[in-house]
């Protein structure tokens, strides 16, 4: 796994990226893909070729890991359709970090 992109500033982001890369590896393994590099700039649609039903599975994995502190469905429901198509792993990592920090603060 490579950490491409320059936006990884904190330990938090690195840890969350590692978590999410692990979840995506589980998903991709079902398609027989076990050596896909996942970084902050990786797109779910173009690079990983995930379909929306795969993202439902990812939502379940995120909930297992972070409980109700992170709500992936609500995050995507607030986006335009084109934004979802262009969604990167980095944007999800940033959302998870922000949600976890908000839960800590709250």
């Amino acid at each position: 796994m490579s950490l491409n992109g320059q936006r990884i500033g904190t330990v938090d982001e690195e840890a969350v990226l590692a978590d999410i890369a692990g979840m995506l590896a589980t998903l991709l393994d079902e398609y027989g893909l076990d050596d896909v590099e996942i970084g902050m700039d990786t797109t779910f649609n173009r690079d990983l070729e995930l379909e929306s039903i795969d993202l439902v599975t990812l939502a379940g994995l995120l909930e297992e890991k972070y409980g109700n502190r992170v709500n992936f469905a609500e995050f995507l429901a607030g986006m335009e359709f084109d934004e979802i198509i262009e969604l990167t792993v980095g944007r999800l990592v940033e959302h998870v970090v922000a949600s976890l920090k908000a839960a800590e603060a709250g």
Partner: protein
Amino acid sequence: MAIVDIGAGLRLHTQRIGPRGDRPVTATAVLVHGLLTDSLASYYFTVAPAFAASGIDVVMYDLRGHGRSTRPATGYTLDDNIDDLEALLDRLEVTGPVHLVGNSYGGTVAFGYAARHPERAASVSLIESEPATAAWAGKLDGILGRVMHELAHNEADAIAWITANRSQNTARLAKGAARLARETTLAQDIPASRVLTEEEISSVRCPVLGLYGGDSDLAEHAPWLEAVLPDCRTVVVPGHEHSVLVEASGTVGGHILSLIHGATAAPVALAGADAR
């Protein structure tokens, strides 16, 4: 994720979300997706979170052959799909009246369930959809015939055309649809479905909401639907076609929430993408 075994080797992928914390559940809604390229994801990432937040127990599932549900080779008539919905709600012990929501073919399934069990339907919302009539079956026969011809027999050319003229995403969905059409009797079964008589259609006395994209062929069904049903209102969303659910989910979801929560005036504002 929950996999619900409804018997006969069929396992339906189901997602159920409700209000957070101790907010009480005030209604149950069952959301049914469309054919071939569709799955429960079309609701999960659009209207479902806002429905749940408003106090609704939201049940979504993948139709047989679609999404993460099992794919038997046969059994794809409308009545088979209605049987599956009945069995699923039995397994989930959802006994009271439910608010049915269906997109495209999912609306035909939802309406068929309401016609079979009028006492179990609190309301029906049809998004880009219509009840099963002879005209509907004929139209589906044409559409599915073309899908079978283009994708099952000339798949490589068709996918190349879609990739060049639409998008890689659409092409990927089309490949999935081609697999479903090839591996099952869906394309033969749906047009051969038993359709409803006008009496059966007008026996659905609960409130019905029809939502159509202004640029969709289906919008012309709105006046007919209002005329044939005792309690029906239709809304045409300008500037959209058949994908109005995912493209204008704020507007569509707001109208459905107003129906479910019994409002008759302006739709509930919903924080969807298009509502901003």
